[in-house]
């Protein structure tokens, strides 16, 4: 999502793909998958896609693994509906696309008199706190949030809705004074709320809107729960107290950052019961034995953590199982 034009970020294009390609992996970029095709036995036979030149192609596969996360994966499964699978692939439970969780996210920034050198530093977080993570019924909500402490970044970051909140913008007459106060002298808590699964929060295919390749666009239906509202209110108040105790002369609260919704989880739930889940404990679709999902959509609950490391760990675990069981793997003739 946020790559680096300098090539300085440890993203997968730097950490994994060069090695994989050197081993013979064929990577097709700027391609959009239209649908997965199935055969008479109910197995996936491969993916129909449009390449960078707009040409329709088909990639045959013995085994198909989806890793398009909480919006892309259900979008593709729903777009692959057929006479045999009228509600989309792997959707006998009617749970494909449902239970979308996106981690409501708020921030509290503290302004300090002293130079914190906060134009530089580790992106993500220096340290995190789970002090208020577990459920405490006295607070009026269940579950909790992770707090991540981080610097606020360079000068352009001082002007953005994240982490300051669009309502706290400094444009116009207060611009230079705002930069003076914020740049190098601010630290923020990012509050990641555990989002509860709700079957009404879901991904559907838009009946009319299509992308530039003519593939149906996803329609996102998401309403933040009362539990999340209460949770964030409590945590933002505690985070504000902590920054004030640390010496901040002013705090800036952005109760819900509009630009978030980075963590897309839950829309192809993992479970043992095919009637209440989409994939089994190893990421394999209950309905289609050669179709796997190795992304955040298989999470039954969201936790309140940044999900990428866990998604990667789960993908590794499921991949190892797939390799171990390869002699029993059903594949199309």
């Amino acid at each position, binding site marked *: 999502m946020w790559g680096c*034009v300098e090539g300085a970020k440890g993203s997968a294009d730097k950490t994994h793909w060069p090695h994989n390609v050197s081993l013979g992996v064929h990577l097709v970029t700027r391609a959009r998958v239209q649908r997965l095709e199935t055969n008479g036995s109910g197995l996936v036979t491969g993916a129909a896609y449009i390449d960078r030149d707009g040409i329709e192609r088909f990639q045959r596969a013995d085994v198909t693994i989806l890793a398009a996360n909480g919006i892309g994966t259900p979008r593709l499964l729903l777009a692959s509906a057929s006479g045999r699978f009228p509600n989309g692939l792997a959707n006998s439970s009617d749970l494909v696309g449902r239970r979308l969780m996106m981690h409501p996210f708020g921030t509290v920034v503290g302004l300090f008199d002293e130079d914190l050198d906060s134009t530089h530093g580790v992106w993500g977080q220096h340290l995190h706190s789970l002090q208020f993570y577990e459920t405490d019924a006295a607070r009026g909500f269940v579950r909790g949030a992770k707090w991540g402490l981080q610097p606020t970044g*360079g000068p352009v970051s001082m002007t953005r809705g994240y982490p300051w909140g669009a309502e706290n913008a400094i444009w116009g007459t207060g611009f230079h004074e705002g930069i003076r106060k914020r740049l190098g002298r601010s630290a923020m808590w990012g509050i990641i709320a555990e989002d509860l699964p709700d079957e009404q929060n879901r991904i559907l295919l838009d009946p009319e809107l299509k992308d530039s390749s003519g593939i149906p666009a996803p329609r996102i239906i998401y309403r933040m729960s009362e539990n999340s509202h209460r949770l964030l209110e409590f945590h933002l108040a505690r985070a504000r107290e902590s920054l004030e105790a640390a010496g901040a002369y002013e705090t800036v609260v952005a109760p819900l950052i509009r630009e978030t919704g980075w963590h897309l989880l839950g829309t192809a739930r993992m479970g043992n019961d095919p009637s209440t889940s989409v994939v089994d404990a190893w990421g394999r679709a209950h309905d289609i034995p050669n179709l796997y999902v190795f992304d955040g959509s298989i999470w039954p609950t969201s936790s309140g953590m940044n999900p990428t490391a866990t998604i990667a760990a789960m993908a590794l675990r499921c991949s190892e199982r797939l390799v171990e069981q390869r002699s029993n793997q059903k594949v199309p003739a």
Partner: protein
Amino acid sequence: MSIDRTQRAVFAQLADVLIPAANQMPSASQSDVAGQWLDRVLAACPERTQPLRQMLDRVRDREPAQVVAQWRATDTAAFELLAEIAAAAYFMNPVVQQAIGYSGQGPRSLDPRPDYMEDGLLESVIRRGPIYRPTPAE
């Protein structure tokens, strides 16, 4: 595809609404945001060139402050595109960077001993010991 002279003039006027001269700091146009620094920004993010051109062409002869206020209220995408490019171009100017005491990003070595382990910040947490809810047994 580039930004023509008329479009640059409109961009400078809009950027000045966001970043006026004050506190001994130059305005956006005084810092040449619509010149070489705009070119640098668009060279880094070429996909924004066309949306920016279209956005600037919509302004015509309207009052810049009015346009910015309207976008801010009703067209978030246009406002954010303008604001992001204006700020990026402004802060690319080395004179501005010097004035705010910022010299850009660069590599820094990490101290393997984090300061929070040295200065006692976590002592109370360490004293308290771990708190967690065990995962369910199989």
